[in-house]
């Protein structure tokens, strides 16, 4: 039981700097970017803005809990939706911090880094394509926001500090619930179940996707965990690295609060399948 308390508090402690960075950056987006900037400057073709979104992570590097705050602000500023969605899905991998940590975790294996970047980008593009193809733009967000985005006292004229705090705390409850659930799974799941997940190489890719979903570790550190899966096929390790930042238990709660059920359904189905396909294909090249 004590290890659970310890797990919970240290994971939250670890995420606080990144969450605060995300809250600050999203406040900067809100305060300093004029509301019609994106409408004026966005490329007219949606696929160009989608491609630009893939590389926004190089300028705004955050991990997944911080990036969803920025995405919500971008969308509120009328940024093109493929741009924002691609940043949310790929920006957490295509950024200097994550590339560096993957590089250090897999020394002498540049193909893992390259494949991780490629597979995450393709997954983001496919998911964004499916969402923009099958969900009309008006149905992407729920009619009633589940977290109060606009409390009466948190209006646009508020000070910088209170907006940052509001952003920070609006996501904190969901994040801690996600950490709580994944902590419960880690502490109370029997060892045998974990070992089954780790050791069955026939089903390795889908099982490691489930493992990544439950573990819910930050995209900046999951490379080190993956490096410890000695003896697993590299395709399964890639699947762990590519799905974790896009979909996991704590992210599911954050998505649930931001998007409508239809988008949520696509986010639950498309990324795991794409990652599965691409990783089994990529395994031949590794």
């Amino acid at each position: 039981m004590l290890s659970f308390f310890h797990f919970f508090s240290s994971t939250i402690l670890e995420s606080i700097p990144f969450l605060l960075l995300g809250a600050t950056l999203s406040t900067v987006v809100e305060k300093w970017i004029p509301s019609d900037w994106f409408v004026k400057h966005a490329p007219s073709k949606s696929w160009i803005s989608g491609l630009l979104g893939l590389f926004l992570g190089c300028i705004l590097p955050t991990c997944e809990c911080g990036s969803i705050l920025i995405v919500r602000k971008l969308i509120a500023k009328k940024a093109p939706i493929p741009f924002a969605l691609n940043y949310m899905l790929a920006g957490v991998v295509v950024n200097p911090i994550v590339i560096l940590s993957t590089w250090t975790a897999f020394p002498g294996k540049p193909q893992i880094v390259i494949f991780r970047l490629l597979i995450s980008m393709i997954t983001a593009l496919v998911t964004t394509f499916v969402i923009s193809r099958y969900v009309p733009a008006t149905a992407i967000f729920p009619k009633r926001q589940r977290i109060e985005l606009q409390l009466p006292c948190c209006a646009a004229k508020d000070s910088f500090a209170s907006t940052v705090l509001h952003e920070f705390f609006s996501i904190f409850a969901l994040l801690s619930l996600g950490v709580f659930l994944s902590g419960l799974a880690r502490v109370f799941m029997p060892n045998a179940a974990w070992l089954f997940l780790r050791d069955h190489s026939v089903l390795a890719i889908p099982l490691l996707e489930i493992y990544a979903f439950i573990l819910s570790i930050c995209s900046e550190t999951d490379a080190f965990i993956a490096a410890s899966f000695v003896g697993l096929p590299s395709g399964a390790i890639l699947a762990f690295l590519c799905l974790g930042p896009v979909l996991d238990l704590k992210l599911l709660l954050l998505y649930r609060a931001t998007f409508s059920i239809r988008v949520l359904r696509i986010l639950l189905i498309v990324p795991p399948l794409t990652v599965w396909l691409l990783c089994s294909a990529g395994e031949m090249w590794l």
Partner: protein
Amino acid sequence: MIRAIGIKILMLLPLSIILSIILQRKLGLYLHPKLHIPVLVSILYLTYLILSVKIRNFCIHRSTLVAWGIFSIFLLFSFVHLSGFFKETKVKTTTKSAQTTQSHPQTNLLKTKHSDSSTPEKESTRQSDVLYTNLPWIAMTLEKKRFNASNKISVRGFILRNAALDRLGEAAIARVMISCCIADAIAIAIRIPQDSVHSYSPEDWYEIRGTLHHSHLKSKATWNIYANVHFIPRYILEPDSIVKITEAPVDPYLFFFPEDQEMKEQY
């Protein structure tokens, strides 16, 4: 008004706990050193934000308050536990085990040491032909095939024992490594022969000096029963001397560093 002040105090509560953790230099029990400065900076920043916001503007959702309160309770609980509030019973049992080992005349290799008295003399007793290092570094260097296995090494760790290892006549010594926070902790272990003369007590800390020998494992499934423990494959540690450390070290965890030298020097 009073409610708003109460909320502000609740908001500042976990921050003050984290600050006291940092001041007591216990943050290493939670996080990798590379995150200490970011955490300190963000705690100060958050404190500044909370203090600077006008009380009238300080509106917050109830679920967030509950989550923040639960976080502070859990943090307090783990901190109190880690700073040794509940450890009195454990000290009693270790002194008992120290007496029993002294009464065994056969255990000529097994010496008990009190860690507080041993720390100053340890530096002087270090031998030049022995490599004082740690298990994760050895595992990494073995993987890169850069490790000279004939070297005499000295490592610290806690003992793992289970039925499968006992059947093979072996135990294992393990050390936990953290690459970011406790959530990604993994233990690196190496098998050691378990003589009947000095059978190790599980979860106690030992300092073992010896050399690595090739030893292939017949069946992986019999001994690999922990999810987060990674055994160094193909090697066994033949001990020359075994020293029991009666108290766990102040810094029980090791940290992952990309630089080889920094990783190697942790002991």
